């Protein structure tokens, strides 16, 4: 489902003397349906960079990244948009939404985008929000005013509302209490059981042990060490 092959990446800072900063070399990994692969490595090793390349958020200098049948290195924008809409979900650490849009609408949006009718989409949104302990009185309010932990759970609800065949999770349990953490891990287990291929970053070693089948140490792809 997810195949990363010999990926290379560097940033060129044109306004700082055209400094070229190599950040990744020879990155290679695979993620199969029903499998959760953890990206590990110290801060700055490139876990998020790699994940952003898989999502098409960062350009790929060379090598290939395939998700389903799309090669992110060569795909045109509309192919990546279609991939993100239907196939590849991403739960980032930050919630980025239009201000003043109710939480219920924020969570139903990915479903509306794939053509689910509003009633079904809202019912599904309410179901995930309930499971993640977002109280009903918050549903009509915008998540931009919520606490960090609440925002994160809204982000997770949004990511899990539509059943994407592949998912990227960037620290989904970071600022959650024990109960909510357990719910998120259960959601991940359910997704795996349904055949979803997952790539995740978890600093929480117990969470990793519970849901991840394998670990890939990204520091092996950090240029300093590879050189």
């Amino acid at each position, binding site marked *: 489902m997810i195949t990363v092959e010999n990926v290379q990446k560097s940033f*060129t800072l*044109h*306004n700082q003397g055209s400094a070229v900063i190599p950040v990744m070399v020879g990155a290679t990994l695979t993620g199969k349906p029903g499998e959760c692969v953890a990206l590990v490595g110290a801060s700055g090793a490139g876990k998020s960079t790699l994940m952003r390349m898989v999502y098409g958020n960062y350009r790929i200098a060379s090598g290939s990244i395939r998700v389903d049948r799309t090669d992110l290195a060569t795909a045109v924008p509309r192919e990546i948009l279609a991939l993100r809409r*239907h196939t590849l979900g991403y739960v980032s650490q930050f919630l980025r939404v239009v201000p003043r849009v109710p939480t219920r609408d924020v969570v139903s949006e990915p479903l509306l985008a794939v053509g689910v009718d509003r009633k079904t989409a809202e019912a599904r949104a309410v179901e995930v929000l309930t499971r993640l302990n977002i109280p009903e009185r918050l549903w009509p309010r915008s998540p931009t005013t919520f606490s960090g932990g609440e925002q994160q759970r809204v982000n997770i609800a949004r990511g899990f509302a539509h*059943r*994407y*065949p592949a998912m990227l999770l960037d620290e989904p349990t970071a600022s959650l209490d024990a109960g909510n953490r357990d719910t998120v891990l259960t959601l991940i*287990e359910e997704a795996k059981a349904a055949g979803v291929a997952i790539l995740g970053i978890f600093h929480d070693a117990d969470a990793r042990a519970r849901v991840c089948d394998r670990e890939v140490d990204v520091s092996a792809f950090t240029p300093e060490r590879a050189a």
Partner: protein
Amino acid sequence: MTVSSAEHLPEPAAEIPLHQGREEGTAMTPLLQAAGVSKFYGQRIGCADVSFDLWPGEVMGIVGESGSGKSTLLNCLAGHQSPDAGAVRFDTRDRGLIDTVTMSEPERRMLPRTDWAFVHQHARAGLRMDRVEIAAARIDDRPSAFSGGMQQRLQIARNLVTGPRLIFMDEPTGGLDVSVQARLLDLMRGLVREMDLSAIIVTHDLAVVRLLADRLMVMKDGHVVETGLTDQVLDDPQHAYTQLLVASVLQV
């Protein structure tokens, strides 16, 4: 746990067919195709050699500083100005892709009344220009009767009456209160999705394009210096000018 999950989370194949939407991936013809569009003001470049395909359902943002040619380009695309070179092909309902620059005058005049809509930066220009059915006296005599945001929504609403397929927007949130901007953005996102519209939005506000546009085109001195997915261009800008633009945004 697995059994209950099947009830909670439907299988994608069963309930949510993949690639079902007509708006992306499946369409074979772009809705709008710009090929080498150029416009000169004497010696000065308005916009030079701009080419792109806009697909049904896509929202494309055009950003760049004042004088970068983004409004000139928008006006050339929308038929308000005629380009000095290049073609602007539109997927007409009856004849497929036709160059709007060379099509017959009556045919070109029909487009803004049927398939196209144009949202102006200054709502009142848009409202007055097309003789909206609001007493002119109300707008002229008491501009305070409608708020800026209300006027902008009114303008968008009346633009949609003809059931357009493509909407051109020139700084749609420019000059509006921040609180009104957010509601307008949400309105536009919903309209694009529910009415299956495509849109080209000219703005200098990077926050607006991040939330609204699927794709982004960055212009400088009349030239397109970078294009791509909106988040890709903003988060991993390749061109020196785009890097400068992104680095210059004040963080709130």
